[in-house]
């Protein structure tokens, strides 16, 4: 049959169909020549489209590689922190003059970086506390409520004790990082951030 020669190998479907056609099974023209789905009729290998076992394992190995690489920067940062400056060097920053701060007042400042907002509260005559005021829940700025005598996060009503920084209500679970203070010649200075205790 000349027709058979024309058809390349692996075009079995077509051949079958033609044979069918020749045998008189006539159909209307409003059809694609194949009985199959147009998008997959040329896939012959079994399960060619599926992610097979080996492919899946390769993916897993790749993912392990990604994980390994992704923690390297943390490791290097930690190593630098360990080797370099044993103790983190914090700048000394003047926050406010004592005269300008009444008992129960609070001032906002930035420490240690210019984007780390913090809050200094004068709780008593000689009692000062300062915290980095990004809420430990989702980083909203916490403010000092003089009336309620506590620090309030407006976002989800988280509440922190101003004396310890520990959350007393709402979603936050971890205390606010405390800023270390120093009193010097009538002014309050920030000298560091307390190490976070797990």
């Amino acid at each position, binding site marked *: 049959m000349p027709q058979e020669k024309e058809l390349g190998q692996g075009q079995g479907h077509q051949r079958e169909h033609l044979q069918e056609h020749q045998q008189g099974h006539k159909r209307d023209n409003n059809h694609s020549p194949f009985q199959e789905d147009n998008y997959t009729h040329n896939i012959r290998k079994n399960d060619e489209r599926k992610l097979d076992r080996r492919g899946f394992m390769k993916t897993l190995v790749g993912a*392990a590689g990604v*994980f390994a690489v992704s*923690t390297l920067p943390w490791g290097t940062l930690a*190593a630098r922190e360990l080797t370099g400056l044993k103790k983190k060097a914090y700048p000394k920053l003047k926050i406010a003059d004592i005269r300008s701060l009444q008992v129960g007042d609070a001032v906002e400042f930035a420490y240690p970086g210019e984007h780390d907002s913090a809050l200094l509260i004068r709780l008593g005559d000689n009692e000062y506390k300062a915290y980095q005021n990004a809420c430990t829940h989702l980083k909203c700025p916490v403010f000092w409520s003089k009336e309620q005598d506590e620090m309030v996060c407006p976002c989800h009503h988280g509440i922190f004790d101003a004396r310890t920084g520990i959350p007393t209500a709402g979603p936050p679970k971890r205390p606010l990082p405390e800023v270390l203070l120093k009193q010097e010649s009538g002014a309050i200075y920030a000298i560091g951030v307390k190490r976070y205790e797990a």
Partner: protein
Amino acid sequence: MKRSYLGVLLLCVVLFLNIICTQKAVNAYYFEHYRTVIFYAVCNAMLFPIALWIYQRERDVQ
């Protein structure tokens, strides 16, 4: 041919450990436990050759 899914299972375990190590490392960094950070980072890095070894072993068996 009977398939062995041991490799797949082991690799899943490795990936699970990867996730744990990553989380632990980042957390430790936050708490300034730098030695712990390095430990977990090294663990994470070591898991990759292990994964590779499991994969090759499984492939060569066939």
